[in-house]
């Protein structure tokens, strides 16, 4: 206390002195300028930054605390330069000058983590993309995957669900969930989320992603291994690898960084439900149209209209109905996020430390949806003697989720199993929330949307990660050893309770379940590294090691119905009906030996060889181990003599890689008997037997699925690295495709079996480009663009896979894209009086006016497999595009991502299906107003008498096939970094910012969002809404 008071007075005196000096500086040109240089991303002070007066040789450097002092006249320009940072020019305008520097991206010497070691951008021979998360706005994000939308070439990121903590699908070159390695420890990539049992399991709208226990603010860098570079991770690397490195303490003085923000969330426009009067009018009309078609009356048939049914809603009813209840308004709200992060780091030559604490609280835009997340981390490093460094990284975390039943039901129960958003769309607006007695109203078998807010559904998730390692320097700079043990433990507990006041699944019955699961992933590794310049022309960098990886998973759930509401899910012994328990336990172990060696000849020719030998416990003894080799070469063209005079090229490197990666599956090779989930009850329930069925026979012939990765790339740096980038072309061949649920012979008593066979391939390209467009005195403008493309096709199929055929004509080809969509083309709707084409299906009302006209592509007068069209729904191109502007103390960045050339089935259209409305089971969206009816013959959507599922065709029509193209503005951020002498007395740097996340989307897609994952469910899918987030925050370093 006394000390700080003294400090304050000392600083005040200094300030007075400085002011006094300033007053005379007009006379004396030279003055002493002092200040601190800090890093823009994390606010830490930067030692060793060169500070010079532009155009002269005068200069100094910052000390260990990042401070400098230089004599310079007002108006002179100081140049700040440091390894790994963008140079910066600042004009002297006073005696204090605090400067923040940006991390340099894509510099030639930028360090790139490649797994079991590092290399630099100029020496890398494989396709690895580096993402600096510190450059990405984090205010409204709670997980690492959220930061990655569009940020890396070749990395497709898409929103699985936008609910708090919702799943984000990461896929490298279209391969699916990659392997995650955090500080050397393998992390599971999928979310750990218990289900809610089968008691009301169809309300399970939860979809969560992996890495939920980590704090994005703790991440130093993210590397994406896209090609054979992943082969060093062998059997689990077929989908590529994402390496995450956390922040470490740095020797130097204490740094404290705080960042905090407040955000609010506003939904994008959601699907628009029918208003009460629209619903009633439409309902009346649809009943009439159904009647007319049934009686073959005009315009559906030759008979004159007669005996029309009495309208359910009178003209007076409709006039009085008005807009009715805004059900979506009842369940949606403005969301909010509070995000606070503190980290403290520093250290000495002997020890460094990094401590952080994070708090993130999100109230979702759907009532009852939320996330409360706490994280803590300690990354410690000790060097007790010259040859030994001990490291200990710990992370602990708890997430409390408030779950919502958004999405769609997971079974086929229809409207009785609707989740909350489904119910809000399905409930007609002419029904009030509560009846005269104050009880929830009822409509059909749909649960009242507002009553569903009474469902209690919470998940509590904990994770604990310990990562202990030792570095042993045997010969300093040449030979070193590394020993690592990492353990990641996660546990989640979900309580779920539907009170009996909720009319759900056709019953006022309480339902409760409690489900628990946990998993542990251990990494134990020992490596030896060797680095040496063998001769003037040859440098070797080699690593060899062994590892063992253990995974265990346990789950337990119990459930019942009929207990008292006050007890909830806290004591399941209160339940009286439908009592059930489940449990699961799995374990697997992988054991590995690996080595990699990199050679550099004459600093021009690069060669890297790697080899991994993996054993997996769940494979048969004779195929327990497999090899995963890789080789890559690079040619630094820019270092050749003939390039000496080409001064605008700083780097030109051609590289190529080839290698093998693998993937494991569960206990597929071993046969056995197990309870299959069915229980047979006799004597009216008094006696029961769980059926124990043979689920598999032994498959000693199974072998490893292997992916052959090939990649050719070009890295370049032009105009003193003002333009840098990479271009990669790749092909993956997935051979020996291993499918656990492979087809069997038609008469086998096992309907599936694990089987090798089939061959798929992916090919495509990724391009990334960074440019420094403008660099003026006070203004700079940088851009980054990435573009990715891939296709994913079959080369050969499994032996019992049968190509789809219809009416004797095969329409599926052996080499079709894997995700191919097959459909019938249609052209407009049948109109009254129009001749029904001979090829038109007759079932499902397809021959009545208002039904889509099916295109008979080959003109043979009937619909066969030859008339089925196909297309690849995968986007042709994904892009990311960002711009950063700096003007004096201001910074502005804007980032877009998007996709083009994709198509998909728009499942939102199910809500506009007039047939659901007329069956009185649900209301719908305004899209239903476009339905063709006898009074709306210009309607563009099929009429009430057309039921596609009843046409008997093997594939659907194209009426719901739409483009999924979009460009989204992911972030627009404006920041201001203070450079005020007064503030600088207390802080090293202060930056305030406003950020808008998902600010807008440009798309023709009609529905909730083209990016969100959908499923085809009875009644219609209703995903968690997409929303904009507006954040206000500050970041301060002390």
């Amino acid at each position: 206390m006394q000390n700080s008071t003294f400090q304050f007075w000392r600083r005040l005196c200094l300030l007075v002195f400085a002011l006094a000096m300033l007053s005379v500086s007009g006379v004396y040109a030279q003055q002493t300028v002092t200040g601190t240089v800090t890093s823009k991303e994390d606010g830490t002070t930067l030692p060793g930054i060169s500070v010079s007066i532009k155009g002269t040789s005068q200069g100094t450097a910052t000390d260990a605390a990042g401070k400098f002092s230089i004599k310079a006249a007002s108006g002179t320009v100081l140049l700040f330069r440091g390894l790994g940072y963008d140079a910066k020019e600042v004009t002297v305008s006073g005696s204090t000058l605090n400067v923040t520097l940006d991390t340099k991206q894509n510099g030639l010497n930028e360090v790139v983590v490649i797994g079991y070691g590092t290399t630099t951008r100029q020496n890398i021979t494989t396709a690895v993309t580096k993402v600096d998360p510190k450059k990405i706005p984090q205010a409204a994000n709670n997980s690492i995957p959220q930061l990655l939308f569009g940020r890396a070439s070749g990395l497709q990121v898409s929103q699985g669900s936008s609910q708090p903590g919702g799943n984000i699908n990461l896929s490298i070159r279209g391969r699916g969930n990659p392997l995650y390695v955090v500080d050397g420890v393998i992390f599971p990539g999928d979310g750990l989320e218990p289900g809610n049992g089968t008691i009301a399991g169809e309300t399970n709208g939860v979809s969560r992603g992996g890495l939920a226990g980590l704090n994005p603010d703790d991440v130093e860098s993210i590397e994406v291994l896209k090609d054979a570079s992943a082969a060093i991770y062998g059997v689990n690397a077929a989908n590529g690898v994402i390496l995450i490195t956390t922040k470490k303490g740095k020797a130097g003085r204490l740094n404290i960084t705080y960042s905090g923000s407040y955000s609010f969330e506003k939904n994008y426009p959601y699907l628009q439900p029918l208003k009460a009067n629209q619903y009633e009018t439409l309902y009346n009309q649809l009943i009439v149209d159904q009647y007319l078609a049934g009686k073959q009356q005009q315009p559906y048939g030759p008979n004159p209209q007669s005996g029309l049914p009495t309208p359910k809603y009178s003209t007076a009813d409709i006039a009085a109905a008005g807009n009715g209840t805004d059900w979506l308004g009842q369940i949606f709200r403005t969301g909010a996020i509070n995000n606070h992060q503190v980290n403290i780091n520093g250290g000495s030559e002997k020890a460094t430390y990094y401590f952080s604490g994070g708090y993130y609280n999100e109230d979702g835009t759907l009532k009852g949806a939320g996330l409360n997340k706490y994280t803590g981390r300690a990354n410690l490093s000790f060097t007790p003697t010259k040859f030994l460094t001990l490291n200990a990284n710990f992370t602990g975390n708890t997430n409390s989720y408030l779950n919502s039943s958004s999405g769609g039901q997971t079974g086929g129960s229809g409207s009785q199993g609707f989740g909350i958003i489904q119910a809000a769309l399905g409930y007609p607006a002419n029904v009030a929330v509560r009846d005269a007695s104050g009880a929830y109203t009822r409509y059909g078998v749909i649960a009242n949307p507002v009553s569903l807010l009474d469902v209690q559904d919470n998940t509590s998730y904990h994770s604990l990660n310990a990562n202990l390692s030792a570095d042993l320097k045997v010969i300093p700079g040449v030979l070193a050893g590394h020993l690592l043990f990492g353990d990641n433990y996660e546990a989640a507990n979900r309580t779920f309770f539907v009170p009996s006041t909720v009319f759900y699944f056709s019953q006022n019955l309480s339902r409760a379940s409690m489900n628990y699961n946990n998993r542990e992933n251990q990494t134990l590794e020992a490596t030896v590294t060797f680095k040496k310049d063998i001769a003037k022309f040859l440098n070797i960098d080699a690593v060899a090691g062994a590892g063992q990886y253990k995974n265990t998973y346990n789950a337990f759930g119990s459930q019942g119905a009929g207990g008292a509401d006050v007890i909830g899910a806290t004591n399941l012994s209160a339940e009286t009906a439908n009592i059930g328990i489940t449990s699961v336990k799995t374990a697997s172990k992988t054991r590995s030996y690996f080595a990699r060696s990199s050679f550099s000849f004459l600093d021009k020719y690069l060669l890297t060889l790697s080899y991994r030998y993996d054993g997996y416990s769940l494979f048969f003894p004779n195929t327990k181990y497999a090899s995963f080799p890789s080789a890559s070469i690079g040619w630094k063209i820019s270092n050749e003599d003939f390039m000496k005079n080409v001064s605008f090229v700083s780097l030109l490197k051609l590289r190529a890689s080839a290698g093998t990666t693998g993937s494991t599956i569960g206990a597929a090779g071993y046969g056995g008997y197990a309870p299959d989930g069915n229980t047979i009850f006799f004597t009216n329930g008094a006696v029961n037997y769980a059926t124990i069925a043979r689920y598999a026979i032994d498959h000693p012939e199974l072998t490893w699925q292997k992916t052959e990765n090939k990649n050719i790339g070009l890295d370049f740096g032009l105009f003193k690295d003002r333009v840098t980038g990479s271009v990669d072309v790749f092909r993956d061949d997935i051979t020996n495709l291993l499918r656990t649920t492979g087809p069997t012979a038609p008469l086998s008593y096992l309907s599936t079996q694990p089987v090798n066979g089939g061959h798929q391939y992916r090919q495509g390209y990724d391009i990334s480009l960074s440019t420094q467009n403008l660099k003026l005195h006070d203004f700079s403008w940088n851009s980054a663009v990435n573009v990715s493309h891939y296709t994913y096709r079959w080369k050969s199929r499994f032996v019992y896979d049968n190509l789809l055929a219809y009416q004797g004509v095969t329409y599926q080809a052996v080499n079709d894209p894997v995700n191919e969509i097959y459909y019938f083309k249609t052209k407009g709707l049948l109109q009254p009086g129009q001749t029904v084409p001979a090829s038109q299906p007759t079932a499902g009302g397809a021959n009545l006016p208002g039904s889509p006209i099916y295109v008979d592509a080959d003109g043979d007068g009937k619909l066969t497999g030859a008339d089925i069209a196909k297309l690849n729904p995968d986007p042709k191109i994904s892009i990311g595009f960002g711009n950063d502007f700096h003007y004096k103390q201001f910074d502005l960045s804007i980032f877009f991502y998007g996709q083009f050339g994709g198509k998909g089935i728009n499942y939102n259209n199910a809500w506009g299906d007039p047939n659901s409305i007329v069956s009185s089971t649900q209301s719908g969206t305004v899209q239903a107003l476009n339905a063709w009816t006898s009074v709306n013959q210009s309607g563009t959507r099929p009429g009430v008498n057309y039921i596609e599922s009843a046409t008997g065709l093997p594939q659907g029509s194209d009426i719901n096939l739409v483009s999924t193209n979009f460009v989204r503005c992911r972030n627009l951020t404006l920041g201001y970094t203070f450079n005020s002498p007064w503030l600088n007395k207390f802080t090293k740097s202060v930056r305030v910012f406003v950020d808008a996340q998902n600010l807008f989307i440009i798309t023709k897609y009609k529905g909730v969002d083209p990016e969100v994952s959908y499923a085809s469910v009875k009644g219609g899918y209703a995903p968690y809404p997409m929303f904009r987030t507006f954040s206000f925050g500050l970041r301060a370093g002390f």
Partner: protein
Amino acid sequence: MAAAVTVSSCKKGLEPQIYGSLSTTNFPKTEADFVNYVTEVYKPFQSKWGYNDPAGYQNDWFSPEYGDIMMFDYPTDQLNIWTGWGGIFTQFSTASFTFLANQGTGNNHFEKIRFVTRITQIIDDINKSTISDAAKKELTAEARMSRGWNMYYLLQLYGPVPVILDASKINTAAETDLTRPTREAFLASIVGDLTYAAQNLPKSPSDYGRFNQAIALTVLMRTYMNEKDFVNAEKTGRQIMTMGYSLVTDYASLFMEATERNNETMWAISCVPDQDGNENHASFNPWVFYTYPKDYPGNRVKDSFAGGDAPVSTTWAFYNSFDAADKRRNLLIASYTNKSGVVRNQANGLSGPVIAKYPDLGGASLNAYQGNDIPKARLGDVMLQLAEAINQNSGPTAEAVSLVNQVRLAHGGAALGNVPSSATATKQAFDTWLLKEEGWETYFEGERKMDLVRHGQWQSALTSVGKNAGPYLFPVPTYEITASKGKLTQTQGY
């Protein structure tokens, strides 16, 4: 060095750990093991939504959706067309089966050809085991009952289908041979299984709901009937008549939970109230949820699945075919006062009489699924079929007429009276009458399609209610034809 410490041996410690299952080396061994193992054969003969299979969700033969009622009653003249939910409701109620050719492996009864192989394996495992001969016999009888009944239903759906009945062919190329067997060979397999079952199953098993002698004989009799092998059908029917079962005098009581165990019902699906239809819970009876209109004031079920009209209701023509005195008609509600106090009937647009065959009087809470057992072998049905067989073999004998009259008296009531003499005048007249009588007696019990086909009335009956009668068999899935490389022939008419 460090590497050596970490991993001492390549394979040691890398043995698989597989939890939650029994290894092939230690199961099944004991008699108790086999009792558990054989229980699986009951799986398709339950009333639940269905069961999970690795190839997809499959339906039970008695599932409410895509079970026997939907396949054998919905497409006939007894039940109305209903398109409100589209999909299988539209297709089955309109007797349009073409869509089944495009089925995938899920929700597909044709996939039960694999289940037949599975039972063959189970029978072989029992045979090769060291358990007692008595246990072997009884367990084999249960397994063969299941296999025979599965094949019976497959025959009614698709005609003869390829099956593996010889365990030595399992896991060989024979599993890819989808050549349809001859009808004679396929029938002989069914008869062989059911005959063995009838000889070796107990009359009254210790667990109510296990297969018994009567269900084996009843399915065997229907097999003969549907093949018009009336001689064997008569013989089997007479055997059932000697077993000691007798008609109850209150038809409605056959379908009520309180009186579900009686001397007429020979075998029923044992159902439990308050279940959810999931496969880990007991069989349920959800029928009123499908047969009550939205506004119908049920006893315990106040909210059916219906959005308006009931998805399943009988035709007015069928209702009107009853003699007004027939008590069996009382389970069809032609007029009711709805929840709003309005009378609903044919005159004001009720789509069809409400089927209240399984009254909703049970369940711990309102709107719970019911527990009424669902009879699948019933003496009243057997007596009518026996009468039909005798008539086919020997004309309208007094015995045959008497069988029908006994059923009419017991179930229809004394006021109903005997079969009119004009209807028993000739073999043809009596046969025509018998189809009607069978309809009145066993409506909504999953028998109508077979009855219509056997009597040669499939086309005319459907036309009479405005349904287009195509082939009465289902097409086999196209993917199986492809898989068979053309060996599997498509059902005639598709």
